């Protein structure tokens, strides 16, 4: 595939996606087990919280899946950045020689 970003951008992409994969995977797991600490982050109104516990459950589930899908997208981004990085590094010896 063609090289379309330089060494800095691909490094940036690698760091960002590694971070994203780790953190989003963990956060997905935390949403899945319905962590209390994330209760303010789930978008459920206060009345629903008291009256419809099933709504809260589904919201937690939804955010967990969102996090995991995003982690998956970051895996793709990581692969792309790594491939670009590889292209950036590889021709170096030929230029120098």
């Amino acid at each position, binding site marked *: 595939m063609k090289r379309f970003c330089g060494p800095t951008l691909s490094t940036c992409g690698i760091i960002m996606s590694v971070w994203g994969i780790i953190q989003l995977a963990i956060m997905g797991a935390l949403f899945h087990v319905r962590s209390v*600490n994330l*209760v303010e982050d*789930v978008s459920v109104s206060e009345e629903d919280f008291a009256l419809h516990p099933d709504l809260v459950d589904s919201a937690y589930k*939804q*955010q967990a899946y969102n996090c995991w899908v995003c982690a998956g997208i970051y895996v793709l981004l990581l692969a792309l950045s790594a491939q670009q990085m590889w292209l950036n590094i590889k021709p170096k010896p030929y230029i120098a020689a």
Partner: protein
Amino acid sequence: MGSLFRSQEMTLCQLFLQSEAAYACVSELGELGLVQFRDLNPDVNAFQRKFVNEIRRCDEMERILRFLDKEVRKDGIPILETGENPEAPQPREMIDLEATFEKLENEMREINANSEALKRNYLELTELKHILRKTQNFFDEMQHDSNPIRQDEDANLLQPSLSAEGPSEVHASSLKLGFVAGVILRERIPAFERMLWRVCRGNVFLRHTEIESPLEDPHTGNEVFKSVFIIFFQGDQLKNRVRKICEAFRATLYPCPETPTERREMAFGVMTRIEDLTTVLGQTQDHRHRVLVAAAKNINIWFLKVHKIKAIYHTLNLFNLDVTQKCLIGECWCPVVDLDRIRLSLRRGTELSGAAVPSILNRMDTAEVPPTYNKTNKFTSAYQNIVDAYGVANYREVNPAPFTVITFPFLFAVMFGDLGHGLVMAFLALFLVWKENWIMSRKIEGEIFGTIFGGRYIIFLMGLFSIYTGIIYNDVFSKSINIFGSRWTANRSVYDFQHHHPKEGDAFQMDPILDYRNTSGPYPFGIDPAWMLADNKISFINSFKMKMSVILGVMQMMFGIVLSCFNHVFFGRMINVFCEFIPQVLFLACLFGYLVVLIFYKWVNFTAYESGCAPSLLIGLINMFLFKYQDNPPNNKDGTPCLLNQFYSAQKSFQSFLVLLALFCVPWMLCIKPFIMYRRWKAAHNSVPLHNVVDENGHAEGPVKADHAHGGGHDDHGGGNGDHFDTGNVIIYQAIHTIEFCLGIISNTASYLRLWALSLAHAQLSEVLWTMVMKFSFSINGWGGIPLLFFLFMAWAGLTLAILVAMEGMSAFLHALRLHWVEFQNKFYGGQGYPFQPFSFSSMLDAKPADD
């Protein structure tokens, strides 16, 4: 590896080098890098020194090398970086080097001159080619246009001549037109046109067209864009004017034949000559390339060699010549522990040069203060730099750097406490540490990167400590983690809560007595995660962090005072131990040491049942200074505020005793030392007979000078004033120090509260970032949240890096720096020394890229 606690013991040495061996010996010492030479001829200017000729030759060689380097870079030939470190060449090799360089330079100059001439020639031919081609177009157009115009207007000035005979430069007839053709820089065309119009009053006709391809300027090698122009005019007078204007505009004029056939022939000729020139030019370029590639292989090593030779002769210029001219005498500072290594390399140098007489290194006694030399490695050097940035330590005084290794990252982490940010920082620094050899070999330019890379070990430790404090604060990107299980339980129903506190409305308040599960002890490590969800989280954490700041501050200041005792004992100033160190410790312990004890007492002693009625520390401290106590036993039932309660029964008398003791320390620090010094001086003065005044003066001044740096002022009075003890100066000096210390203790303790303030700011900022960015990305309750989450996570991570890790990290770094420089070091650190700068090839070559 010497101890970092004090700087190395230094000695002044005299060095006798035989003339023949001097060069080799100095070269060996340069490789060793452990001696600092002193200039023995400070009055002699640079041109009158012994080895001025050699240095001039080195300069000349450097000039040639720089010229070659420039040429190599111009052609984009890669320079070989072997990382090799050649020995300094022998003096006789210098001649070879010079010859090589001179030959190379001459060759290069010749090639350059030739290729410039060839290129100029080529340029002219190319321009001529373009002129012939473009003017042909003009003439063709004229031919096409002329007929209809001629029918319209017979009196037309231009067309008849063109159509009839073609253009002619030397036509005598008034109807015949002349022309000149040439080439001019494209940007000059508008001005040129206007000038022609004005000067010739519109009587000339200018046509111009652009040459599409850029031409190469033979002199500078830059690409320039030019235009071909042709000017038609009538008469000799106009012709002269036109030529002058062309000259003024630096246009190059070329002869252009009048008839089409001649032009065609000329064009053919030009084409063949261009072809010939191209081959010759190609050969010249090839030759030049070959020469430069050969030079590029060696140029770095040559640079190193010449630098070394030059440095050696510079050093030899600092030496004195013996009367017999047989030997050179130098003086140098060197560390005592390394004397053997220095002697060894001197012997090696002597053997290398084949001299018969060995070189001699003699220790000398001197009254001068030696330079400060701390042996550091790649880990400690960054910390030493932090300390040295404030001031280089006095010779052999306690060096704060080894303590800074731990206290600096720790105080930083107290302000930066966040597990997530600490992890990010530690991983970035870990990468730099892990790949340090690779990064160093890359030689990445840039001041900011250099600073970060130089401090990679500090940053790594700062990251690790931030992870630790982050766990203590239970803070990960403003969220908490529940590892051991929160001790707070909501085992009552909602209605119980509301019943318990009816006026709170629907807010649930947890009661430490009812809702705290204490059977397995408190939360084992750090703050209970339940606090992260509490409304009163900030007031709880503030109280904890403020107390912690005071405790850490008092500990560090006390440690600084203890270090000052090490200095007093080491330099034999016992008077300072009794008149400064002891009252200082008492002063700090009575005021803020006592506060620290009370803090711990309050933490440990009050249970949940009585915590609502605990005495206030701050008001208690203020009342302690004001001697204000409640007379009656406190009876909180009738409205007396709890915060005025007493911690224990004998509080009033004990606290009063502490304050009075601290106050007593002030005159102790202020008066006793000047008094003892006066007594000592007087005793020494009386015990010596009068005729020995000069001798006695030296004795009397000895202790005074040793006791305070201020002795210089005393010295100024000269020998005749020996019976004068400068009471005023001594007392003022002591008063300033005492006031500075006493006020400093109070203001510095307050200054340590920045630990709390910065830590609060950091936690709040990361919470704000989470609520503004990350929380928003969960606001869509469906699959549509995925792209939102994807992009907002990136934004959040970027902002976390830029604001929380980089900016907040910088601010916490600066505050930690200040706490060390001011609050910690002013208790013991003089910082009046001067650094040891050894003559060393490696440090010289490291510094080299900076001035290139």
